[in-house]
């Protein structure tokens, strides 16, 4: 029984990453109708940013949590301004292909300079050690990951659904012309939204650096699971992505206990089932 709880807790930790990443993807898709294939590469850039901030300036983890999302967010906004804008009126498939190409470039460049193996990033001193929960010994850092992701997810949801700024963002994507008539700078909103989504990915990267080592390919495997999460949760729904992210992490943990061979495939099987029954996802708006 202890083993089951232990796997569920590890699943919850993984779920935190899924939730944070799918949140960024959902924000970008929900607001901009762009499938951001480069999300995994930007997550990786966040982790590398934290590594460089530490090695070049000596500023530690806590600073990196703020600096890395800002730097990578700005990079994302530059990408949006220079490239994604050109595709504004075209078929959404072009956006998918463009971001796929961008992911290849970013990952390839990092792989060339840093190899495929990981660079170490230490757990910050304040979060070292662990607590004995009875059924397992939980490293404090991993507990922090769960709490921090929950806070960030809820804060983002609140920002988008409940504040005025969020209302402007949502209106700008539903009816840009009308919103522009009110004097609101719609292109700037769009760029900011993309930056926010990218910043969330980078934040997840910093959070993951002490656990997963800083590797150029760290985004590649997780991004497809996150796509499945977003599809299941409903492609534009913020709350749907958060809940599904955590839930899927827990389901994966359950599968690892009862039927380990299927733990990789359970997410995709679930996605196929959901799509057959409810094509817009569990809480999604109509396509």
């Amino acid at each position, binding site marked *: 029984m202890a083993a089951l709880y232990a796997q569920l807790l590890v699943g919850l930790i993984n779920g935190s990453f899924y939730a944070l990443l799918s949140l960024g993807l959902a924000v970008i898709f929900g607001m901009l109708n762009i499938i951001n294939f480069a999300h995994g590469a930007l997550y990786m850039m966040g982790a590398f940013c934290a590594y460089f901030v530490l090695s070049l300036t000596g500023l530690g983890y806590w600073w990196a949590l703020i600096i890395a999302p800002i730097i990578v967010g700005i990079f994302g906004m530059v990408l949006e301004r220079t490239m994604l804008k050109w595709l504004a009126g075209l*078929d*959404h*498939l*072009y956006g998918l292909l*463009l971001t796929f190409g961008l992911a*290849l470039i970013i990952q*390839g460049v990092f792989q060339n300079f840093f190899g495929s193996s990981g660079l170490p990033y230490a757990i910050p001193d304040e979060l070292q050690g662990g607590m004995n929960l009875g059924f397992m010994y939980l490293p404090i850092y991993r507990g922090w990951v769960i709490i921090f992701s929950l806070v960030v997810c809820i804060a983002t949801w609140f920002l988008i659904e409940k504040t005025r700024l969020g209302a402007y963002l949502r209106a700008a994507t539903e009816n840009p012309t009308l919103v522009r008539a009110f004097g609101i700078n719609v292109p700037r909103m769009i760029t900011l939204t993309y930056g926010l989504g990218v910043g969330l990915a980078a934040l997840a990267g910093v959070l993951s650096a002490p656990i997963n080592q800083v590797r150029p390919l760290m985004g590649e495997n997780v991004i*497809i699971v996150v796509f499945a999460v977003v*599809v299941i949760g409903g492609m534009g729904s913020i709350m749907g992505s958060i809940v599904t992210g955590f839930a899927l992490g827990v389901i994966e943990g359950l599968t690892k206990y009862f039927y380990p061979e299927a733990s990789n495939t359970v997410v995709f099987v679930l996605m196929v089932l959901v799509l*057959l029954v409810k094509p817009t996802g569990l809480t999604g708006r109509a396509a």
Partner: protein
Amino acid sequence: MTALTDDTLPTTPGAMRDEMIVFAIMAVLLAAVPFTGIYPFFVMQALCFALLACAFNLLIGYGGLLSFGHAMFLGTGGYVTGHFLKVGAISLPYWPGMWFTIPFPPFSPEMAIIGGTAVSCLLAVITGYVSIRRQGIYFAMITLALSQLIYFIYLQAPFTHGEDGIQGIPQGKMLGFLDLSNTTVLYYVVLVGFLAGFLLIFRAINSPFGEVLKSIRENEQRAISLGYKTDHYKLLAFILSGTLAGFAGSLKVFVAQNASLTDVEVAMSGLIVLMTLVGGLGTVFGPVVGAFVIIAMQQYLAGFGQWVTVIQGVIFVACVLLFRRGLIGEIAHLLKRSL
């Protein structure tokens, strides 16, 4: 439906004759390769990928459906054919994780190819049924996720040997007398396979079925209002595309003599999209040219390590932003002919 193929020129009766002439030139050039100094192994690989890209193009260029999971057909054709050639036993699952094996001796090349293609066809029927319900980006996402599902299944299935792949696949004698370990013989067999697949696609595009498909791509609502069951046509196109992709995978196994996870990865699906994009979506010869360009680049830039990935990414971005018609598409537009 999609703006990806808005620029294709309408086919005229003269166009078909033009295309047949280009086809004849292509066939002659390719037949002459063993007499030049070009490394035949590289050309054979390029031919397999060219057929794969043409099969993919059938779906996107004429059906308007971007599949981001075509690697699953390439891999299935390869693994099944490789397994039949090396081991022969057929394992059927009767419960997740439990298999029931019929021991057979290793198959002959032609039976193995038929087997591999048949299994790919079956996979295409199943995945097509699930995916066709959606269009546009949703369709792309579903095919992506399905191909990841297949990847993880192959990672764990015992017959694929996971990370190690199926190695040392024997080449055997095709039809009893064509010795495939002779490079020249193998080359002509692969070439015949490629030309046959290409002609099949060509025929499909220029048939009533192809016309309906194109009309669905242009305006699905109108096609429905005319009484066509569009879902059936799209599913048929998907099955044909997947089967031919599996056939390309089966051929590739004879060339490489191994079947591995690289053939089922997302990166491979992306590579297929890239080849077709570079060559020209919706053109007849675009995918062939695109495949040769990309394979040549991988071959001759292999010493540059991961810069090849970066260059592929740059080409992707450049094609999407500036160069949407692709190489053959641009040439066709200049010459105002359908290529």
